[in-house]
């Protein structure tokens, strides 16, 4: 797990934990009940069928411009890699290399995960600072870089869940029928 992903996990926990307002039916009353507006900012999980995707849209071209501004420092030109790791490529998963890079193009089974992770965790220094349009555009750019969608395909709440990832069928249950 990279440093970036560990921080994202922390953010996920923060979603569950809330901040500072303990509500007890009895006893001392500190703070005040959290309001829907307060927790909406944390309630941002995106399901593989698209549930939770917000309104908005973005194209690979728009994403490329944002990428050059906010992502290239850590992820390299066109996702070629850097301190934040590569975002394109990835070799075969079978074979003699038992620790292959698990990247969007060769491993990730759902395109919605790109939107979810980018929105909650990126850019590294300013997580959750991107607009929904920007996240859609960056998601489209990464999918296009990996040649999973066309260079002019816009991503939005309708299109993104329909993207078929190359490794979609690459997973088997640890316990068949038990989870």
């Amino acid at each position, binding site marked *: 797990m990279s440093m970036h992903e560990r921080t994202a996990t922390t953010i996920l*926990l923060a979603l569950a*934990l809330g901040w500072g307002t303990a509500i007890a039916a009895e006893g001392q009353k500190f703070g005040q009940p959290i309001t829907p507006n307060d927790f909406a900012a944390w309630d941002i*999980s995106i399901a*593989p069928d698209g549930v939770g995707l917000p309104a908005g849209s973005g194209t690979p071209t728009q994403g490329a411009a944002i990428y050059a501004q906010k992502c290239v420092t850590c992820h390299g030109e066109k996702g070629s890699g850097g301190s934040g790791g590569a975002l394109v490529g990835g070799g075969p*998963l079978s074979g003699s290399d*038992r*620790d292959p890079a698990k990247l969007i193009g060769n491993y990730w089974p759902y395109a919605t*995960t790109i939107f979810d992770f980018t929105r909650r965790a990126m850019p590294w220094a300013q997580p959750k600072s991107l607009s929904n349009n920007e996240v859609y555009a960056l998601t489209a750019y990464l999918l296009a870089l990996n040649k999973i969608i066309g260079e002019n395909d816009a991503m939005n709440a309708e299109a993104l869940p329909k993207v078929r990832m190359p490794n979609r069928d690459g997973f088997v249950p*640890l316990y068949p029928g038990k989870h």
Partner: protein
Amino acid sequence: MNVKWLHRIKLVEAPVMAINETKQYTELLPSGKALQFFFPQEVKSFITRPSPGLTLKGPGFYEISGLAYSGNGPINKVEVSADGGKSWALAALDAPVLSKSFTRFRMPWNWNGQPAILQSRATDEAGNVQPTRAALVTERGESKAVPPVTAVLAGHFNAITSWATNPNGEVSHVYA
């Protein structure tokens, strides 16, 4: 962060397939397919005494003891071998034997001073049996990363662990 501030839990009907569930908690197999979701620690045990650093002081009676646990429920039984898995005997389990909890096992042993390979093999209530290292590596593949004791990519290494004793009573980790 503190659990006392646990405030809100969102339940969903199916996995949201976040990065943790797809890229991370999955175990890539040699076939190129990956096991999902790789959360539970499968049935496992190891001998804590004797073990590397706990040297035997000459031939005689010893108590072999160790810990067993399973992410799938309580431990059903633990067997111990002093000949590298050729023969096994049933160990005693200390109470309480609880689900997903450390279970202490014990086995009396008369060491004759000759080289021996000590192993423990746990079975959980669901009938899962700890595999040999060779069997696990065949199924899951072997990482080139160190330390080699973990062997398997995601670190859920639950295979049988082997301790070799030499005539001086020194104990070392071996693949057996």
